[in-house]
């Protein structure tokens, strides 16, 4: 408080003598105001606000004012003048950021006043205070209606102004007829406002005025220029929503523009001797819409555009005014939007050059924007202005810099991506607000994904993005990065892959030294360290585990990172065990694990238990379960789970109940006290009122809930007489019958699953990258080198681009080498030449790696199934999948496991018969490759099927067969998950509370499975942070 006071004193002191003069003037003004009828109170308030030296002081004044107004405004019989003043004071209160809602009603009341000034003030305050959906609006509609009928045109126009701001969609009909009538008002002032009111109605609710389109066309011909220009505003909106319908107005717009440009409007519409500039700009905007992609319409505009351009050119010796430059800029926008003639394009390019060369930053800004438009039609054009662009890029002016980055973003290619992304990153370093950062980060990611010259570069770039933008980056980017690392560049180049990975490991280990890292980056780091940390052999397991523990310890609140860390530790331990080494957990790791064992997060707990289990296993089994470098391997899934068929059949034969779809199960159990032999009639009492007619007593129809197609229903009905149980038996025994229950749903779902998960990382990052390079390559050979950023131009000494560059060099010998280098790397053309001359940049010339890379990668592209984007590949993979398992020589996982665990079990007998089904059985073990964590403790001790039935029988009140089948269904939906995990989870749940109904547990079990499945698939986490994936899966 004290410092604030001294501050004021200082300021007052500084102003010194100036202050006294000011004071005198203020007094003079006050006297003048007083004579106009403002009261002393009002003057004092304004003076106090005006003289407030700080925000705090202003605040205090306004708060006092609010208290005062609250008292005064409620007094009875406040004179009208006084009331108007109070309302303006309320406007002040709101303007300075305080709530004045206590006075809104008085502003509304003020609109009833007979005095025009008071009425207008009332309307003004109302429009400033209320939004169109405010409750008080309804009170004002009546006043507006009355005022629209007034004889005084100023009252009418005041009401129309209010209409524009206050009428919402529901109240449009209340005033629409009157507004339409006013289009014929004798006063142009009123006609103009009526047009704008209709414009507003169109913006609010296009359908409300859709019958008035002819009106807008007629108004365009109004003899008053103001009304005509108002009609342009409305027509601009109309045209932009539907270009085709207004093509026939092109001639009208052209003729208006011509008349305006030729100075046929009254001089009063001029602005600095430029005739009606805003009308010209509006029409140019409309013409751009009309002429886009339409040669015929565009041709009609050529002459008028030339005319406008000619008239805006400054005469000899006089500088161009801002306003004529604004029109010129708008012309460029129009020319580049329509199908323009070469002559017009030439002129547009010329004006752009002039803007860029200007010293005025505003013009430079417009020039950069115009350049972005011109190069979309003529890419070569950029080269002439490379130095100007770089000047702008390196300017102190943040706005200019950003605009230039926008431009560069538009012209990024594989040849200059490194330089551009480099600039973007260094720009991002300077940013502090989240909005900008998010935007630029997403751009960097996009460019890097599209044009990355090498994986190494991609990874480094991503690391920087994560570091700078942190949690503003979507999680998908992190997953893509992990997938890329797991997958490597190509199948055949193992060495390069391992090099890539070890370099990633090194960089991440270094990164961990940094004090504060965003969560998402830490997740990637943990995953990479867990997966590849010990692979290179340079780091011992203890080192890595120690680091991981440090990470987890440093982020006690971040369960996601903790989850990543513990899983990574599990993996490293597993690798160690598999390699036959003794694993002795570090004390800190041990305590970390113990912590998690008692964690409130079930997920973390589960992970910790898994680690514990792994530590107790022998190398053989660990090796089978967790391959080194297993994350990149493909998982083949047969969603029919045929290997369980034997088991299902034998169980059914033994009298077990068949599987009932979950939906039906729920429906049944909700209405029935028990599953056994129920009929519809028994069920009735438990329901509330039923209004429809009773059906004939029949089986409770499960198909109703699963929305079977009607065509299938007759089939079903035939079976009505049978008891539900036997029916269900049949259904389950026969696959085609199962389909009957819910064929649509089941099928669809499975398809989705296969596509999504079938080949988890098949297309990963490299294909898109190589594709883009490949495309570029093709493009190049096709065009024979069309100019910008063509490394081929280094071979052609006589390209125009090179000439331009050398000319420039002569003209501006003082251009620093650094800048030239930058220019060259951005606009590849001349860089080729310079490189040939031996002037090598300190940075690695981006052309080289890119070129080398694209060459290397072409063969790999050929190998890839198709050079299509990721999603397409996925789809194709989905199709392949059906045949894949058949072709693959697979083995029975149970048998395999059984071999590992000595001790024959009953499972052996059930699983052996499954073995012959090789052709279609799932490659069970491969599931584990990327899903290291399974509750293996159950495996050695319990035989699977025993265990199953154990869990099932313990859950009371439910037919046992429901459960295994439920598990089956879950697996169907989550093929990526291991069935064993599902079973283990089942056991857990049933043993933890055997009394509760499994129905209730069902969903939660599924939830945990979902979570698990996604996690593992994307390489990790348990957050469930990827709801979109779940939605995809579940429709």
């Amino acid at each position, binding site marked *: 408080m004290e410092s604030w006071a001294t501050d004021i004193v200082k300021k007052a002191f500084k102003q010194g003598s100036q202050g006294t003069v000011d004071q005198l003037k203020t007094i003079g003004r006050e006297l003048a105001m007083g004579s106009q009828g403002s009261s002393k109170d009002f003057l004092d308030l304004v003076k106090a606000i005006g003289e407030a030296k700080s925000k705090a002081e202003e605040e205090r004044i306004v708060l006092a004012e609010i208290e005062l107004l609250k008292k005064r405004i409620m007094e009875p019989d406040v004179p009208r003048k006084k009331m108007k003043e109070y309302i303006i004071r309320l406007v002040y209160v709101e303007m300075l*950021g305080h709530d004045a809602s206590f006075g809104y009603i008085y502003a509304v009341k003020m609109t009833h006043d007979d005095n025009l000034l008071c009425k207008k003030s009332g309307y003004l305050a109302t429009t400033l205070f209320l939004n169109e959906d405010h409750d008080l609006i309804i009170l004002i509609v009546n006043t507006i209606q009355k005022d629209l009928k007034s004889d005084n045109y100023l009252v009418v126009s005041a009401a129309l102004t209010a209409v524009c701001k206050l009428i919402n969609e529901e109240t449009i009909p209340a005033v629409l007829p009157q507004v339409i009538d006013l289009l014929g008002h004798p006063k142009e002032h009123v006609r103009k406002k009526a047009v704008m009111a209709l414009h507003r109605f169109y913006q609010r609710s296009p359908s409300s005025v859709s019958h008035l389109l002819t009106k807008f066309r007629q108004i*365009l*011909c109004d003899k008053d220029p103001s009304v005509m220009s108002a009609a342009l505003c409305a027509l601009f909106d109309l045209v932009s929503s539907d270009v085709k319908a207004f093509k026939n107005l092109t001639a009208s717009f052209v003729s208006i523009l011509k008349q305006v440009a030729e100075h046929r409007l009254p001089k009063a519409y001029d602005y600095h001797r430029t005739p009606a500039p805003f009308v010209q700009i509006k029409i140019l905007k409309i013409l751009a819409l009309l002429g886009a992609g339409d040669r015929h319409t565009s041709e009609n505009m050529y002459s008028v555009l030339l005319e406008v351009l000619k008239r805006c050119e400054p005469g000899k010796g006089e500088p161009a005014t801002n306003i004529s430059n604004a029109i010129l800029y708008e012309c460029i926008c129009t020319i580049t939007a329509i199908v323009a003639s070469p002559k017009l394009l030439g002129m547009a390019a010329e004006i752009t050059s002039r803007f860029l060369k200007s010293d005025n930053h505003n013009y430079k800004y417009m020039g950069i924007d115009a350049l972005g438009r011109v190069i979309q039609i003529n890419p070569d054009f950029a080269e002439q202005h490379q130095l100007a662009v770089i000047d702008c890029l390196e300017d102190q002016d943040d*706005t200019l810099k950003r605009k230039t980055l926008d431009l560069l973003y538009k012209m990024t290619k594989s040849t200059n991506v490194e330089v551009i992304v480099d600039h973007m990153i260094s720009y991002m370093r300077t940013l502090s607000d989240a909005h900008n950062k998010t935007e630029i980060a997403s751009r960097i990611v996009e460019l890097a994904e599209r044009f990355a010259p090498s994986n190494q570069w991609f990874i480094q770039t991503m690391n920087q993005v994560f570091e700078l933008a942190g949690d503003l980056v979507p999680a998908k980017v992190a997953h893509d990065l992990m997938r890329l690392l797991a997958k490597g560049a190509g199948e055949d180049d193992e060495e390069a892959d391992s090099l890539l990975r070890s370099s990633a490991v090194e960089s991440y280990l270094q990164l961990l030294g940094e004090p504060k890292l965003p969560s998402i980056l830490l997740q990637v780091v943990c995953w990479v360290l867990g997966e590849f940390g010990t692979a290179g052999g340079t780091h011992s397991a203890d080192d890595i585990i120690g680091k991981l523990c440090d990470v987890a310890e440093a982020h006690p609140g971040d369960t996601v990172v903790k989850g990543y860390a513990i899983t990574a530790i599990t993996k490293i331990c597993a690798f160690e065990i598999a390699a036959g080494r003794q694993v002795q957990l570090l004390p800190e790791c041990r305590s970390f694990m113990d912590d998690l064992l008692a964690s409130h997060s079930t997920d973390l707990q589960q992970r910790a238990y898994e680690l514990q289990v792994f530590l107790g296993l022998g190398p053989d089994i660990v090796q089978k379960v967790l391959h080194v470098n297993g994350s990149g391997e493909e998982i083949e899934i047969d969603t029919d789970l045929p290997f369980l068929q034997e088991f299902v059949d034998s169980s059914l034969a033994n009298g077990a109940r068949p599987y009932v779809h979950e939906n039906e199960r729920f429906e049944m159990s909700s209405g029935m006290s028990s599953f056994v032999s129920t009929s519809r009639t028994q069920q009735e009492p438990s329901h509330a009122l039923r209004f429809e007619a009773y059906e004939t007593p029949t089986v409770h129809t499960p198909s109703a809930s699963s929305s079977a197609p009607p065509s299938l229903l007759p089939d079903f009905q035939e079976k009505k007489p049978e008891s539900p149980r036997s029916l269900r038996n049949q259904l389950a025994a026969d696959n085609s019958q199962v389909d009957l229950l819910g064929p649509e749903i089941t099928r669809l779902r499975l398809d989705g699953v296969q596509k999504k998960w079938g080949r988890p990382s098949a297309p990963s990052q490299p294909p898109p990258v190589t594709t883009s390079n490949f495309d570029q390559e093709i493009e190049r050979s096709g065009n024979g080198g069309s100019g910008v950023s063509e490394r081929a131009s280094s071979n052609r000494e006589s390209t125009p681009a090179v000439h331009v560059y050398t000319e420039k060099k002569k003209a501006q010998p003082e251009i620093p080498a650094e800048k030239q280098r930058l220019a060259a790397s951005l606009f590849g053309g001349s860089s080729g030449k310079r490189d040939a001359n031996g002037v090598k940049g300190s940075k690695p010339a981006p052309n080289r790696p890119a070129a080398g890379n694209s060459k290397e990668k072409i063969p790999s592209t050929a190998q890839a199934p198709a050079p299509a984007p990721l999603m397409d590949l996925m789809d194709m993979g989905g199709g392949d999948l059906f045949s894949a398992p058949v072709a693959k020589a697979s083995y029975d996982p149970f048998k395999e496991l059984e071999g590992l665990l000595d001790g024959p079990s009953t499972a052996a007998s059930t699983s052996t018969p499954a073995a012959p089904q090789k052709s279609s059985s799932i490659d069970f073990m491969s599931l584990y490759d990327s899903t290291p964590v399974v509750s293996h403790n159950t495996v050695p001790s319990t035989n699977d099927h025993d265990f199953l039935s154990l869990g099932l029988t313990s859950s009371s009140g439910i037919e046992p067969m429901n459960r295994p089948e439920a598990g089956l269904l879950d697996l169907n939906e989550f093929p990526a998950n291991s069935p064993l995990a599902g079973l283990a989870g089942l056991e857990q749940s049933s043993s933890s509370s055997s009394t509760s109904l499994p129905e209730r547990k069902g969903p939660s079990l599924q939830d945990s499975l979902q979570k698990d499945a996604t996690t593992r698939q994307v390489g990790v986490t348990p957050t469930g942070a990827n709801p979109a994936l779940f939605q995809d899966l579940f429709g």
Partner: protein
Amino acid sequence: MILAPLSRHRAGFRTTGNDPQSWRGPSGGSDSASELGSAREERVGCVEKLGRIWWTEMTIRFVLLVNKQGQTRLAQYYEYLTIEERRALEGEIVRKCLARPDNQCSFVEHRNYKIIYRRYASLFFLVGVDGEENELAILEFIHCVVETMDRYFGNVCELDIMFHLEKAHFMLEEMVMNGCIVEINKQNILNPLQLMDKTT
């Protein structure tokens, strides 16, 4: 407290224009109604599909007058923001714009807005527009507003606007409607105001 006069208009205005009769509407305007009728039916469907498009079509989102201490002197929004939002927005914008040196561009990108600003003595005029607007034209529009105020108040200053806040608003109401620039003819803008002054 009195400000130096805002920059005066240089080019003299010729208020007496040419004969208004010389202005003729476009020749192609009188399309036959039947032709339009068929087009309309298509449009209805199209319009309904598009729904509320006004958000994207509005050009000017707000006009703001701030003195060099960052105190708001006039604020007119063409889209609804709550008081808190306005307060936050104004604070951010003022901090951004007022800190910029004179030689830098008069345009600043902020959130989804582009802000075009111009300084007159101790007063800053700031106009927020959406992405697709001609920045130079808006810059000149600001000057046009100042010229209009100048003509009405005669050497307008901060206090004029403070004492006659409603009148400054009335002028702006005439010039900008629905976020579009509708009028720059000073005669047309000031006419209602002058008529009102006469009657009171």
